[in-house]
């Protein structure tokens, strides 16, 4: 550790934000092509399951039509980037370097072509530890997704480690 590190990375502003719910993003309508392309990318180089691109086939499954793979992200390619999106790697200064400490998802209604997904965010937990990389701050963010009918689609928690 060559650079000085502060006694804490937890600012009063961060602390005050714990548990406060914020509106998140609203997706563009999910297109069947978004789902097909996602499936092709994550199964590359093999052909993805028909459920994700063949409507005739998908109709015969319990889903009665194409659904998205459950880990699908409907919030990609906004014309304007959300300001709070952290950049991996950071600036290299203590407290700005970020590691993804893990994710936790629970899935409910599937995402289908035409769906518009809305998210809400909150800082669920905030704590610090001394580790082998020096002082580390753990930010646990909760993000919940609903579709245009108000049905819960996914709850998620992500831990980002700042060091």
């Amino acid at each position: 550790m060559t650079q000085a590190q502060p006694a804490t990375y937890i600012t009063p502003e961060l602390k005050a934000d714990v548990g406060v719910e914020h509106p998140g993003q609203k997706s563009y309508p999910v297109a069947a092509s978004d789902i097909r392309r996602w499936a092709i990318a994550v199964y590359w180089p093999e052909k993805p399951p028909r459920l994700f691109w063949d409507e005739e086939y998908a109709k015969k499954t319990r889903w009665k039509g194409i659904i998205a793979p459950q880990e699908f992200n409907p919030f990609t390619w906004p014309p304007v980037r959300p300001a709070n999106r952290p950049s991996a790697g950071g600036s290299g200064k203590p407290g700005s370097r970020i590691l993804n400490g893990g994710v936790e998802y629970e899935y409910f209604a599937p995402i289908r072509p035409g769906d518009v997904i809305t998210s809400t965010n909150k800082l669920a937990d905030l704590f610090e530890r001394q580790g082998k990389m020096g002082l580390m701050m753990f930010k646990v963010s909760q993000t919940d997704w609903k579709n245009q009918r108000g049905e819960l689609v996914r709850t998620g928690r992500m831990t980002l480690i700042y060091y």
Partner: protein
Amino acid sequence: MPPVTYAEVKEGQEVPVFVRVTDFMHWNRYAAVNDEFVYIHMDDEMGRKVGQKAAFGMGNLQVSYLHNMLRDWIGDDGMIKKFSCQFRSMNFKNDTITAKGKVLKKYEQGGEKLVDLDVWTENQAGQQLCPAKATVALAR
């Protein structure tokens, strides 16, 4: 491969593996669909700058590989209910990534046939990249 049935599932049973030898062909496609353009996934020099030996693949792609393995096992009428993971090691170019899983327990709850599993991805040296837990619901 027909979907696994609840009657067939046994504690300790291993899930058929999902394997990919990964490089920029996989990562660039994933960057495009997840809108995840970050220098550490694109540029070896930037990978070294954050203390790694080179550029490396996205953690979220490991998440997809684990979902793929589970989907191949449970079939189109099954459903992944819960998934949690940590990102422990990096996926470097030409690594053979194998998604693996082992059944922890099976149980019926709320009218659903559920299976809890330990799942993980590992590289060709047997090093775990993405240790995870999952719960799936089986159709029959």
